[in-house]
């Protein structure tokens, strides 16, 4: 079983195993249990340490300075991301702005609404340019789970976390995108902070996502705030 996940909401393993002087379960009160079995029950009953996300699938490779106009061209910004049907349509236009000469394989196949590529591999300054939140939204709506890049423009990074749409993961070293090809089978392992390209056989270290991880896992900043009790479910005023 994995060690306690590096999550702000995780409880340490020691705390899970500590004897509880006032067990709340009726089952426990009625039963004569040895100390050992009590611990095992507690382990199973308490929130098990969450396994950090693991994504597996084909990757789509882009280069440096991919700006948000290439991720979602401005003509599609009339679509409002908070409307479900328009959210889906945004997904169908993800990466529609990439020049076809440099990127002959479309991210979303013609006629499809989502992409076969679960992971995007990029270079430096991914998501630069406009602040449009439609950019991480389009990627998430298309089915992307994670972007693995050398670095991010700040508004794109912030939007990815706030919406919880994609994990903006950073590689520790440069050059990975040059060694990957669109269609390579990859694994993104947040628990071990590693990006594996099974097709090429190469592995790359990732920087831990840190506090941003639980926010994205919860589904964005609002969901996280509610989950952790920072704000009430629906504020009345």
């Amino acid at each position, binding site marked *: 079983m994995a060690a306690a996940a590096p999550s702000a909401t995780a409880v340490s393993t020691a705390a899970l195993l500590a004897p509880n002087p006032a067990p709340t379960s009726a089952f426990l009160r009625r039963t004569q249990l040895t100390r050992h079995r009590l611990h095992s029950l507690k382990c199973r009953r308490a929130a098990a340490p969450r396994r950090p996300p693991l994504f597996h699938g084909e990757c789509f490779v882009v280069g440096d300075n991919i700006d948000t106009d290439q991720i979602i061209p*401005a003509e599609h*910004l009339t679509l409002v991301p908070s409307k479900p049907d328009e959210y889906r349509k945004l997904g169908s236009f993800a990466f529609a*702005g990439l020049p076809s000469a440099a990127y002959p394989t479309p991210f979303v196949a013609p006629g499809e609404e989502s992409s076969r590529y679960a992971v995007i591999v990029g270079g430096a300054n991914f998501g630069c*340019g406009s602040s449009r939140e439609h950019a991480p939204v389009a990627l998430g709506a298309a089915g992307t789970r994670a972007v693995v890049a050398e670095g991010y423009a700040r508004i794109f990074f912030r939007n990815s976390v706030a919406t919880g749409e994609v994990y903006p993961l*950073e590689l520790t070293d440069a050059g990975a995108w040059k060694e990957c090809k669109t269609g390579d089978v990859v694994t993104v392992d947040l628990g071990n902070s590693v990006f594996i390209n099974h097709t090429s056989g190469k592995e790359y270290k990732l920087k831990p996502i840190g506090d*941003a991880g639980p926010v994205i896992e919860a589904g964005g900043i609002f969901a996280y705030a509610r989950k952790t009790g920072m704000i009430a479910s629906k504020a009345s005023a």
Partner: protein
Amino acid sequence: MASSISTAAKASAAFAHKKELAAPAPAQHRAGSSRRTKPCRVRAVASPARAPRAPSSTGSVKSAMTMTEKILARASERAALEPGENVWVDVDVLMTHDVCGPGTIGIFKKEFGEDAKVWDREKVVIIPDHYIFTSDERANRNVDIIRDFCVEQNIKYFYDIKDLSNFKANPDYKGVCHVALAQEGHCRPGEVLLGTDSHTCNAGAFGQFATGIGNTDAGFVLGTGKALLKVPPTIRFVLDGEMPPYLLAKDLILQIIGEISVSGATYKSMEFVGSTVESLTMEERMTLCNMVIEAGGKNGVVPADETTFKYLEGKTSIDYEPVYSDAQARFFSDYRFDVSKLEPVVAKPHSPDNRALARECKDVKIDRVYIGSCTGGKTEDFLAAAKVFLASGKKVKVPTFLVPATQKVWMDVYSLPVPGSGGKTCSQIFEEAGCDTPASPSCGACLGGPRDTYARMNEPMVCVSTTNRNFPGRMGHKEGQIYLASPYTAAASALTGYVTDPRDFLM
């Protein structure tokens, strides 16, 4: 909230020393150190957060801060703070427009409730400007959505437009949000202004903290009036020397972006000081701060002075208190420019940092010129273009599109006399030069937009533009080639049909 210590640490390794630059001849060496001020200590960014120091515990000792740090400290009610800290700030103004407004409103209602009220109906400014003069139904619907919200919430500042066939029939309509914010007195020194648009950094020209955020962050601000921001370290740009008559602020910022690259200021503040900056008008300072985002900057600032106060007279009745960087403030790095030695520059396709001298691109044949946007569609931008057309007296050789940023700018174009013209207005000079008639004020084709947007690039062409971005497809067609330039350079290029250094006409 999201952290980015890693990016900062990488950047701090690159900027290990103060740079002194006198472009375009890097071999020039400044003899003597009489003009040098005390060197600035470079400070590592990845410092751990420290607990705030209560004033009572330290007596009169205050930690030195840059103006960006001071603004965020005041907004978060902290005596002091340091780059890298995450702080909750009170937002003074939140701006949104027709493209991001509906999404922001959707999130606000979903998270705070259908009947929720915005935190302060006087601090939300909603400005339709992006996709206005179009028959695109969704675009039109989006303006209706923000109108409905403004009515429901009784939003004080909503610059509405209903009659799309005649912008003048809409007395409230302004146009481009960043120029409207300035013209309507919403930009004030020392304040925090957030907007759902990357060029919100434009307002830093007023000595305030202004930056772009996404719909979700904006939805949060709508409900709470607060935002969680990470304090950026500041890169200082000292611009000294007399501004040559053929240079504009656009040349200065393109010079800087070309110097530090499109990610050179990521997660950082850019502070512009020096005698040249002090000589700039407010509109020129806005042009400077407008493109901070193109270098990846979080915000840009120009210290407020008499020029700022004069501009604000009569525009705002809200008190403001400017702040200034302490003499001992620590900057991430320093760049110095002798402006008198700079030349007109362009940013070649397809990146704002792909800098080149305008004169070195004189063999680039162009298909059109576009003068407009928050970056290059203000009154002074049009006066500058008119100056070049006037000096030439000839007609343009390529279609030249003029899109005033706001109604006010449009009116200035039609009423202000151009110096040295014997009383002609910009519009007259433009007409004589064979330019297109100035269009309805909006963001226009700066970002392409719906297919029927005026001056949109629907075929691959070469365009010289006073706008802010030239990534592939920015103005419409993915194979379009955009050369970013100052209004002087754009006008000069229109006259020759090639990328042209404005000195060909101004000297």
